């Protein structure tokens, strides 16, 4: 009805409405885009947090190892002290034929009737391999007898393989390539479900890092090995940097095996040391695509790699040992026996990285003990000026040097130039990461290998007449990432690696056209199919929690740094100063200003930060902490991974318990390593808290739990905390027939 309403009125009304609608739409669009941008920011720094902390953990492990090697090299300690740590340097000590057979003999291990897991007969059939898969899916455990038998067969096969697998996609076969699995059985099952199990028509290549962090590392190994035994020409394995017993000490694999196999775990681990060293280093597909775990460097030479004696590198972190060949053509490695431990041998042996001579020429050290060393450090500490400089010189020089520098300066190494070069190449292959700038620099973040640029890739591919490098080693949000002009592909197959929803996993199919076809997946039904951006919230909370713990663990240093900015002692610092101080202590290169509102709840009206209040916010409280010195607690917390690693090294019979005496020795080691004083009284206080049954031995896990040094929820610690059950959990396993 148009009475009283003119046409033009209607038109204006209509157009006003249209304008309002447009304005409304604009508002919403703009807000939404802003929200997306903020989320993207959060995603980036969350990722950054996880990676920084992860890589600094790897670096810490290498530093610890180097330190222990340095001690071994420079001191002839008393036999107690030596036995504490020397055994980790004693690789493959059981090697004479008869001893070997006796040590790894599985034949007299009986399988009880009550055992309900799979029974294996050799040679393996595909039905058995698939059966094993099913059994693990149903949470069964393979009996140690079959584990040992399977591992022995695997070792026999691996010895026949070359350093570089040669794979061909002839007959239209597509090869499926998988990246890091890190003990995440769910992901492997998902891949086999989506893509089918390995077969003659379906060859697979697994690119390293099968173990550590996740809770089913041994199951993954057993599955991969059994399929390899069934299809030796269609299942290929590359070694990763985590196929290394030194790394396994920190990241959970050692613990997993010892927990699951209480009686035979030690033997299984020993055998695995051998097996890891025999894993091929790389694979080449159709002579055009190179697949290896870490990457390359400017000196990578496939010819050198192909000729190396790869099994000499039981841990990639050490140069190869001297070797003799037995008439049976089986290489035998010399054991650093009691009798051999003489001054002359010390001169000949090398730790992984050379140490400079700030403490004077080597020959005056040989008869010092650990006690002497720590006394010397203590004496130095009395002279303040001298000590800080010396501390810096000695350990900074030793621990922070890049291995390239060190290798070039090493003069009295027994290794020839060839083996040195070989070793460096293997280290590069397993540990390197690509970077966006040209050139090649030492990978100081991880502590091993290097960073290599697009020019190195280009040069390498041209020289070797290849077209693509596929590698793993780095977690990627989408499970994969191209770089260097799509000439390098990073492939990561452990989904939800940092936390549920943190990232997808991916695998690649490569046919005769050699064009990589990527398939992604995510092994969790808890999150909907959200984009990477959308699942930020949960991962972010996880990352921030870990970060807060790290900050708390560095409280003393942070306090010092804050006081420098707060000369008037007001207890307050500006936001800017807060951020500068935090970065100067943490060295994580994070956008602290942006993170501030997530990390600091307390804030005064004018925007300054009360740092004492802040520390209270962050504090980790525990039931046992009251009578223990606060700064000692902080040290415990900060270096808990190192502490646990040393515990496990000291626990020579792998029982999970160490004696009081060894407990004290551990602390001595740690105090030397950290250049700090820990009194006997401190140690007694700690011990008393734990040794509740007063029998003179300390349960390592209980200790770590008691001081809240482990956090079941923190993903970064998951490799340990997943089986960091209490002692009562472990006793349950004792009745388990399959161990």
């Amino acid at each position, binding site marked *: 009805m148009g009475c009283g309403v003119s046409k033009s009125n209607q038109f204006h009304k209509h157009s006003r409405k249209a304008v309002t*609608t447009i304005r409304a*739409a604009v508002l919403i669009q*703009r*807000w939404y*885009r802003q929200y997306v941008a903020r989320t993207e920011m959060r995603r980036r720094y969350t990722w950054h947090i996880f990676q920084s902390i992860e890589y600094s953990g790897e670096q810490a492990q290498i530093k610890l190892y180097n330190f222990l090697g340095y001690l071994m090299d420079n001191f002839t300690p008393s036999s107690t002290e030596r036995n504490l740590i020397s055994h980790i340097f004693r690789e493959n000590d059981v090697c004479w034929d008869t001893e070997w057979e006796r040590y790894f003999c599985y034949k007299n291990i009986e399988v009880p009737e009550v055992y309900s897991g799979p029974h294996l007969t050799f040679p393996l059939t595909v039905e058995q391999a698939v059966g094993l898969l099913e059994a693990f899916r149903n949470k069964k455990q393979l009996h140690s007898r079959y584990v040992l038998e399977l591992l022995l067969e695997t070792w026999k096969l691996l010895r026949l393989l070359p350093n570089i697998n040669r794979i061909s996609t002839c007959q239209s076969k597509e090869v499926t390539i998988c990246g890091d699995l890190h003990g995440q059985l769910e992901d492997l099952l998902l891949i086999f479900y989506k893509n089918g199990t390995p077969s003659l028509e379906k060859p697979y290549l697994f690119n390293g890092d099968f173990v550590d962090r996740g809770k089913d590392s041994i199951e993954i190994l057993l599955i991969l090995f059994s399929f390899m035994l069934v299809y030796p020409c269609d299942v290929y394995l590359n070694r990763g940097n985590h196929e290394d017993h030194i790394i396994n000490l920190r990241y959970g694999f050692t613990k997993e095996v010892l927990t699951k196999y209480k009686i035979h775990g030690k033997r299984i681990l020993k055998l695995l040391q051998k097996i890891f060293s025999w894993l091929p280093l790389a694979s080449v597909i159709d002579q055009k695509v190179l697949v290896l775990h870490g990457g390359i460097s400017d000196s990578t030479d496939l010819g050198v790699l192909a000729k190396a004696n790869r099994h000499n590198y039981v841990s990639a972190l050490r140069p190869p040992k001297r070797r003799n060949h037995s008439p049976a053509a089986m290489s035998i490695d010399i054991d650093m026996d009691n009798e051999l431990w003489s001054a002359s041998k010390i001169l000949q042996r090398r730790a992984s990285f050379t140490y400079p001579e700030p403490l004077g020429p080597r020959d005056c050290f040989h008869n010092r003990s650990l006690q002497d060393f720590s006394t010397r450090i203590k004496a130095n500490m009395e002279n303040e000026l001298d000590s800080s400089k010396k501390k810096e010189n000695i350990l900074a020089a030793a621990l922070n040097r890049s291995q390239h520098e060190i290798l070039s300066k090493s003069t009295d190494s027994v290794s020839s130039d060839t083996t040195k070069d070989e070793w460096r190449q293997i280290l590069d292959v397993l540990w390197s990461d690509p970077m*966006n700038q040209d050139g090649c620099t030492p990978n100081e973040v991880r502590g091993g290998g290097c960073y290599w640029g697009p020019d190195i890739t280009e040069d390498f591919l041209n020289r070797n007449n290849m077209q693509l490098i596929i590698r793993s080693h780095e977690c990627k949000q989408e499970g994969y990432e191209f770089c260097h002009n799509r000439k390098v592909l990073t492939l990561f197959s452990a989904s939800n690696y940092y936390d549920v929803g943190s990232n997808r996993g991916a695998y690649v199919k490569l046919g005769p056209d050699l064009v990589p076809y990527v398939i992604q997946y995510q092994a969790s039904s808890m999150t*909907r*199919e959200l984009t990477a951006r959308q699942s930020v919230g949960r991962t972010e909370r996880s990352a921030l929690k870990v970060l807060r713990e790290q900050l708390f663990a560095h409280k003393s240093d942070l306090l010092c740094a804050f006081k420098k900015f707060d000369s008037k002692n007001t207890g307050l610092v500006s936001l800017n100063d807060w951020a500068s101080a935090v970065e100067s202590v943490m060295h994580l290169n994070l956008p602290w*200003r942006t993170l501030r509102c997530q990390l600091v709840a307390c804030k005064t009206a004018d925007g300054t930060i009360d740092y004492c209040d802040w520390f209270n916010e962050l504090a980790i409280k525990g039931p046992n902490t009251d009578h223990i010195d606060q700064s000692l607690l902080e040290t415990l917390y900060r270096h808990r991974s190192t502490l646990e690693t040393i515990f496990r090294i000291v626990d020579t019979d792998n029982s999970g318990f160490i004696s009081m005496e060894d407990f004290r020795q551990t602390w001595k080691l740690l105090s030397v390593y950290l250049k700090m004083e820990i009194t006997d009284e401190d140690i007694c206080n700690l011990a008393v808290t734990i040794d509740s049954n007063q029998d003179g031995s300390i349960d390592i896990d209980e200790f770590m739990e008691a001081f809240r040094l482990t956090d079941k929820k923190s993903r970064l610690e998951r490799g340990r905390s997943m089986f960091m059950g209490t002692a009562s959990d472990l006793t349950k396993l004792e009745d388990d027939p399959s161990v």
Partner: protein
Amino acid sequence: MAEEKESEENISALHKKITDAFQLFDYDSNNTVNVREIGTIMYSLGCFPSQADIREFTAKVGEDFSGVVHLDKFLPAMTKVLLENRFPPIPRSKLLQAFKVLDKDQKGYLKPEELTKYMMEKAEPFTQEEMDEMLTAHTHQKDNVIHYEKLIDKLTADQNM
């Protein structure tokens, strides 16, 4: 004098904030970012520019023909933007009003088709990708609609970075 010092500190704080945000997108670690990230960086610093504003700003700070923006140019320009509060945030109340305008029947929610129509056809249209993302994240799983008050809560949370 104290005021001068304070504003000096303010500026320095702004500089650090801008540089932090910039460097999160600096993949090559050489103080440059791709031009396409400029909008994202501006938003993440708390600004609400229009698409035209972003284009204009990018044109001013970008290097010709190279597709990158250098921190040297970005920093002073962005500092000015923040000091002038040139692209102030839109208050939450206006956002609610906006949704109510689109919600013609005042149901309290929008159907995916409705929202799509507005977001992709009007004003500064979304790309298909942006639209898909909005819908997957914010459509209620069971009743398949977008409850905009909940959405507003999400959009306006953590505003002060």
